[in-house]
């Protein structure tokens, strides 16, 4: 992880939050997240503790995170914090593009909509990981993450197709998500040594 320091991660978050108008809240102490976690637990979507510790959540422009930015843990490496920041900022872009009502309708009421919005956000991980390693993350593996979002098997398959088709473009040099573009541009300037060597 040479080059990736707590300070770099903090600066990255500051840059992305400023660019996309986001703010960060500690998820573990947010009463609204305790309520959401309890509700999701009751619905059998995801265990409350797991929701509070293992998932970042974005509502509107507020990003709820279960870690301290720049402090690496077993669950949240520094690179993982870079990727999740980009992923959550992509949700802000979706929220701004669709508007609050359409976004909420698609994300909450429709499993197909939720799967698509998440697949698009998970594409950030694929794009950043490709920038860093020159290797594509498995679309199957990424799409499997959606199983804990209360979507159907068909939704997971569609998400996998979205990610697989995206991967075909990414490995040919595409950067599809605007937040990935912003993140990669920043990383190219500030920690270029992290980037995969060509060839």
């Amino acid at each position, binding site marked *: 992880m040479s080059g990736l320091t707590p300070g770099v991660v903090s600066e990255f978050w500051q840059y992305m939050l400023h660019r996309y108008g986001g703010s960060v809240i500690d998820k573990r102490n947010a009463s609204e997240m305790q309520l959401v976690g309890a509700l999701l637990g009751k619905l059998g979507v995801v265990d409350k503790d797991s929701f509070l510790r293992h998932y970042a959540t974005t509502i509107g422009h507020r990003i709820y995170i279960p870690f301290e930015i720049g402090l690496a843990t077993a669950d949240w490496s520094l690179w993982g914090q870079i990727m999740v920041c980009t992923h959550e900022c992509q949700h802000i872009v979706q929220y701004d593009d669709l508007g609050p009502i359409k976004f909420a309708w698609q994300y909450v009421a*429709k*499993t*197909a909509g939720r*799967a*698509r919005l998440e697949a698009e956000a998970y594409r950030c991980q694929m794009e950043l990981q*490709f*920038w860093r390693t020159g290797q594509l993350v498995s679309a199957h593996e990424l799409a499997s993450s959606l199983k804990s979002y209360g979507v*159907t098997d*068909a*939704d997971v*398959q*569609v998400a996998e*197709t*979205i990610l*697989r*088709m*995206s991967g*075909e*473009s990414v490995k*040919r*040099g*595409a*950067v*599809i998500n*605007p937040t990935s*573009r912003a993140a*990669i541009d920043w990383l*190219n300037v500030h920690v270029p040594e992290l*980037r995969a060597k060509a060839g």
Partner: protein
Amino acid sequence: MKLLLAMCALALCACEPVDHCRVNDTRCSGQTAQVCDSDQRWVEIMNCDEVAAQSGGTWTCRMLDDGSGHTCLPVEQDADEEGGAQ
């Protein structure tokens, strides 16, 4: 009767065309790569013009050579031109 027919015609015109597709199929709709979601509706995977704007070069929606789906692919440039890069 004419009024009834006119109302029916109006009601039909007011509805979006139903374009049920086969779940997980992909296609190109102009410069947009689409997938059929679990609601059997075509939804966007990516727009190739936006990919081009962000990635450089020229990108177009095409089927992959192995026929496994549709996505944005770079248009071959002349040897002395520079393509998209991260």
